């Protein structure tokens, strides 16, 4: 069994005991534990069930590469699935549940799959669920959905907050092991601004566990020493619990900082996503030990040799009492020594190699009295929920059992793979190292930055420099290189010398024993989390999935949340073997960020809840809110859709507001309409190019409605232009169009007509603008007093500056409703006060504010088009019968040439008409009119569609506008519009102006 030893545990504070619960069971650990070490200390080796076969699984690793130890953490607003126990620091009160089992971890019904595994080979789902087709939707998919997925989705809203932070440095070092520390120190010595980050809570990486000395000092002390030096340097920033998650173009790095996961009682954000720009990046991300593929290598108790060492040295936890070590290299011997020194039993070291002479490690093992069997291997592991023993065989054979050795743990090592993820994220290439049997960065093919320079350097174990002495020198070199690359002068300094024992060469082992038959191969796991075995990869190759990317997807090798950190190299080697190819020829799959999963909250940062999007508010926003406004989003703006009174529904409110604007007095907050000042000697010429109509002939004091098109000829905006003086125009745009049209103007001024003398300023938000609409509009303004707003003084389509009720105003006599109407602009800071004043004088005149829906109905009654309703980016002014607004005198304007193209002049283009249902009902918005026959795809022929549709309270019936084939020539014809629920609407084609065709109401 696994247990806490009386001594050891360099990272523990044994004075501080912590309580936590796992699957409802209360357990104890110490400050400094990870959840994994604390579980092991409580003999909780079984931590989960595998994804496909529901096999019992225990801890395999001690770090980010752990595939099995995933749990649901927390509850309610802090619940989160798939938390890795090996990287979760223990805190008091932590609660966790294991995943992927039912009804319990110990007894899981789904485990039946492991007995069915013969029938669930690679590609099973692809093959099985192809036919018959209808079963997919109703049977297969629901079944797969139910059985798929790890953990549970959170149900409650995330109670935590998150944030981003932008940081800039010359050199960023990712990884706080000895190579990273040395690289940071060397780079910092040149004066470069250095950021050093470490994903865990501890500096030193594997160094302190694996031992050795630096300049005669134990590694652990050396680490403390270098950290205290770096801490005093003003140009160095050190961060623990900050993972380099991804490396992107031009030196961009995402850093994932876990601020409160280890201390939830602290205030502040939970995670901080660092958005880092580094001149040069050193990836000192270490290496990951590989499992050995032998039968039963997934039985709880089989663990990576280095992980077992970590649990022992860092946390004082023994994985088992009797541990068999199986290896193809010298490094795993360290585990045997540490176990032995802790007083635990190591019955045998099974070493797959046959060497001419003993290495120092072997000699030491023998000196410690450990039995070493060279050329031997594990044939299979015995046990189900826990290792009970191993069957020993020759590595060279097919697995004939020579001996059975009882044990409760197996420490395995298949060699080490550099963590090349960050190097590879942005295009760094790899080379295959035959000696160490791993991929490592190819220094000649580094990721390229903004200047075409290499901007990443790998260092230490991440660069294949696995031994302490090599890693230090490599880190030093990387630090110098990084500093020089960012323009700092590097002085030749001596590098501390690391001392670690000589090692005998490792021997690649891709299958144990090398001649293992199918029975053993189908129990030799490659990918623990996704349940991919040696036999699956071989089957994929046999079935023709020869490309590594295909084999990956067919078998799901490396596609789990651990992204194949343990399994990829073994899988590639298996594939290469099955294809009679070499590993470098097969190549790797693509490494994509993030290195390990990061929280969605950290990606969102502050953008949640109220500030998810920047909502734009007019100066009268709060008044609207207090008076029953239901909001309509228009771009980022919020406009009142309608002001709903007590006892009314929204429809009632819209009808009331629409009627009142025609009968009495309506107020509309029109502040969101864009207002652009266009000034200069060439302003008239410029606007003639931008609008389809002639603007240069407009007289000061007058207004003109204008249309704007893109170079493609399509309508992009409309609005009223007022000429302020000879050189100055004020152009109104649609709501949400201000920035877009401002940019459109600037684009043409800056990139095409840069010699024209025109300046544009966006003054949209300088003004609050109120439309005062209805038969009583003039009376209201006269009650405010201060300027003459009579028909003679201020005619239709004129504007004037003046004062109303003491407010400095600009009054435009324009109408989008067909009523007598004034749009009045005041400084935004007085917008609310002006609105209040209008409400007061309007009290006896029947004043009511109205929202955007009433605005729409009023304009539709008059047949006025709305950009975004009647237009959709494919509509030209000619389609809408707006020929009167297209100048024929001008040689050129944006869109003119396009409107001459054959498709644009095609008489078959759909044209705007009014539509009136025979029943008086409201046509569904967007409904299509169907004609005779079918098109090439066997669909009914479409001959028109509804672009706007409302119930008009003023006319007492449904009115609509639409684009119809030959529409204006078919007045009076009845069209059929199938609705969504079987109903078909019949509507007659009519003139689009439904109300006050002669415009008498506005002309008073």
């Amino acid at each position: 069994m696994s247990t806490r030893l009386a001594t050891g545990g360099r990272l523990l504070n044994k004075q501080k005991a912590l309580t936590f619960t796992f699957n409802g069971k209360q357990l104890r650990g110490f400050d400094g534990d990870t959840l994994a070490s604390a579980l092991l200390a409580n003999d909780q080796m079984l931590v989960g069930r595998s994804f496909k076969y529901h096999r019992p699984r225990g801890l395999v690793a001690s770090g980010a590469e752990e595939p099995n130890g995933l749990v649901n953490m927390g509850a309610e607003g802090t619940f989160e699935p798939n938390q890795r126990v090996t990287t979760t620091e223990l805190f008091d009160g932590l609660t966790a549940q294991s995943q992927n089992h039912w009804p319990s971890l110990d007894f899981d019904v789904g485990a039946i799959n492991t007995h069915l595994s013969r029938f669930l080979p690679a590609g099973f789902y692809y093959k099985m669920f192809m036919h018959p087709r209808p079963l997919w939707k109703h049977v297969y998919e629901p079944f797969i959905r139910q059985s798929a997925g790890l953990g549970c989705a959170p149900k409650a809203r995330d109670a935590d907050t998150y944030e981003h932070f932008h940081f800039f440095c010359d050199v960023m070092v990712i990884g706080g092991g000895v190579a990273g520390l040395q690289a940071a120190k060397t780079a910092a010595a040149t004066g470069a601004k250095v950021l050093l980050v470490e994903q865990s809570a501890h500096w030193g990486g594997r160094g302190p566990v694996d031992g050795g000395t630096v300049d005669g000092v134990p590694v652990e002390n050396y680490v403390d020493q270098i950290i205290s030096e770096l801490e005093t340097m003003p140009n160095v920033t050190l961060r623990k619990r900050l993972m380099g998650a991804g490396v992107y173009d031009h030196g961009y790095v995402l850093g994932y900082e876990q601020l409160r996961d280890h201390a939830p009682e602290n205030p502040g954000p939970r995670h901080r996503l660092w958005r880092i720009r580094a001149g040069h990046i050193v990836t000192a991300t270490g290496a990951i030990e590989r499992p050995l593929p032998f039968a039963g290598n997934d039985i709880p108790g089989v663990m990576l040799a280095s992980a077992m060492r970590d649990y022992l040295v860092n946390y004082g936890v023994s994985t088992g009492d009797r541990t068999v070590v199986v290896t193809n290299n010298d490094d795993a011997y360290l585990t045997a020594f540490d176990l032995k020194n802790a007083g635990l039993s190591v019955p045998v070291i099974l070493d797959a190699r046959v060497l001419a002479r003993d290495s120092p490690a072997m000699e030491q093992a023998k000196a410690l009295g450990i039995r070493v069997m060279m050329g031997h291997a594990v044939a299979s592991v015995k046990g189900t929920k826990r290792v009970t023993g191993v069957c020993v065989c020759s590595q060279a054979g097919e697995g004939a059992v020579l001996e059975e050795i009882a044990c409760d743990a197996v420490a395995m090592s298949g060699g080490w793979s550099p963590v090349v993820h960050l190097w590879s994220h942005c295009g760094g290439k790899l080379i295959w190292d035959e000696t160490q049997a791993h991929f490592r960065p190819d220094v000649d093919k580094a990721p390229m930055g903004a200047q075409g320079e290499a901007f990443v350097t790998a260092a230490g174990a991440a660069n294949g420099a696995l031994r302490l002495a090599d890693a230090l020198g490599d880190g030093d070199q990387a630090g110098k290189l990084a500093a020089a690359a960012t323009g700092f002068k590097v002085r030749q300094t001596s590098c501390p010398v690391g001392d670690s024992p000589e090692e005998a060469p490792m021997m690649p082992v891709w299958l144990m024993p090398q001649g293992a038959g199918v029975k053993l191969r189908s129990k030799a796991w490659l990918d623990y989390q996704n349940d991919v075995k040696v036999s699956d990869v071989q089957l994929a190759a046999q079935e023709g999935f020869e490309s590594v990317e295909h084999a990956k997807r067919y078998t799901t090798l490396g596609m789990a949340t651990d992204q194949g950190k343990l399994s990829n190299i073994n899988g590639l080697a298996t594939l290469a073997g099955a294809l009679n190819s070499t590993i470098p020829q097969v190549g790797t799959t693509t490494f994509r960020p993030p290195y390990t999963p990061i929280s969605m909250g950290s990606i969102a940062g502050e953008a949640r809840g109220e500030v998810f999007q920047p909502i734009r508010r007019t100066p009268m926003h709060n008044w609207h809110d207090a008076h029953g406004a239901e909001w309509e989003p228009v771009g980022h703006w919020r406009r009142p859709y309608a002001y709903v009174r007590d006892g009314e529904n929204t429809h009632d409110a819209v009808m009331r507001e629409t009627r009142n604007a025609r009968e009495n007095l309506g107020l509309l907050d029109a502040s969101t309409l864009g207002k652009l000042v266009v000034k200069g000697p060439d302003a008239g010429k410029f606007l003639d190019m931008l609008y389809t109509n002639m603007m240069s002939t407009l007289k000061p004091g007058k207004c003109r409605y204008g249309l704007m098109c893109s170079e493609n000829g399509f309508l992009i905006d409309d609005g009223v232009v007022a000429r302020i003086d000879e050189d100055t125009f004020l152009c109104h745009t649609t709501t949400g169009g201000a920035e877009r049209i401002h940019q459109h103007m600037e684009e043409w001024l800056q990139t095409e007509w840069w010699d024209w003398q025109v300046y544009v300023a966006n003054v949209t938000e300088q003004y609050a603008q109120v439309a005062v609409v209805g038969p009583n509009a003039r009376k209201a303004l006269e009650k405010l007093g201060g300027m003459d707003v009579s028909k003679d003084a201020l005619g239709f389509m004129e504007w004037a500056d003046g004062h109303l009720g003491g407010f400095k105003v600009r009054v435009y006599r324009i109408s989008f409703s067909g009523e007598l109407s004034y749009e009045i602009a005041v400084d935004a800071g007085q917008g609310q006060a002006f609105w209040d004043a209008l409400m007061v004088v309007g009290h006896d005149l029947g004043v009511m504010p109205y929202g955007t829906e009433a605005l729409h109905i009023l304009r539709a009654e008059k047949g006025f088009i709305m950009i975004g309703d009647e237009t959709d980016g494919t509509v030209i002014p000619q389609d809408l019968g707006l020929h009167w607004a297209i100048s024929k005198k001008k040689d050129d304007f944006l869109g003119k040439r396009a409107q001459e193209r054959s498709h644009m002049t095609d008489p078959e283009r759909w044209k705007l008409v009014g539509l009136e249902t025979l029943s008086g009902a409201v046509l569904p918005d967007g409904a299509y009119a169907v004609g005779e026959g079918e098109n090439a795809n066997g669909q009914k022929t479409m001959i028109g569609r509804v672009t706007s549709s409302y119930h008009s309270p003023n006319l007492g019936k449904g009115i609509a506008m639409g684009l119809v084939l030959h529409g204006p020539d078919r007045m009076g014809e009845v069209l059929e519009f199938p609705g969504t629920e079987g109903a078909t609407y019949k509507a007659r084609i009519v003139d689009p102006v439904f109300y006050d065709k002669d415009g008498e109401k506005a002309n008073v």
Partner: protein
Amino acid sequence: MSEPVTALGGASADNGIATLAEASLQGMISLRGDLTASAVKKAVTSASGAAMPEQGRVTAEGDRALCWMSPDELLLLCPYDAVGETLDRMHKALAKSHALAVNVSDARAMFRVSGARAREVMAKLSPVDLAPDQFTPGMFRRTRLAQVPAAFWMPEEEAFHIICFRSQAQYVFDVLTVAAQPGSSVGVYQE
């Protein structure tokens, strides 16, 4: 006539790692023109009393300042009540020049973020290097603040002035509040 108000009526917060406050009414005049033309230079320097700012900088004199927005745009800051008179003076001085000067005082909102952690609060929201050796008083930066455009400068160490659109004032104040929340110190800039 009534007293004009700012977008948020003087909102403030000081329970976080920095002090946030909406500034009171601020006069702002946007000038478009050729900043190398002597008539333009003369018009803005005499209207503000401040020296012509270099690219990417702000110059101040008393309660007036000139902010460099682009090679053909300046933002003149002056007391709110002095905008009309200042604008008139500029219009006169620019009568013969191709230039555009408009009052944008009410189109903008202005905030002050201050305290030892002010740089950190800003660096959470803007993609700008705000290390003390990289961004210093006198610099003027137009950039992105979370999801909206903004401009800021440091009137002195440990303080930022931010200008944004009036309609986005509430958003800006709210994101600043999140960025300055208690317990969110980053602790990277040397003090």
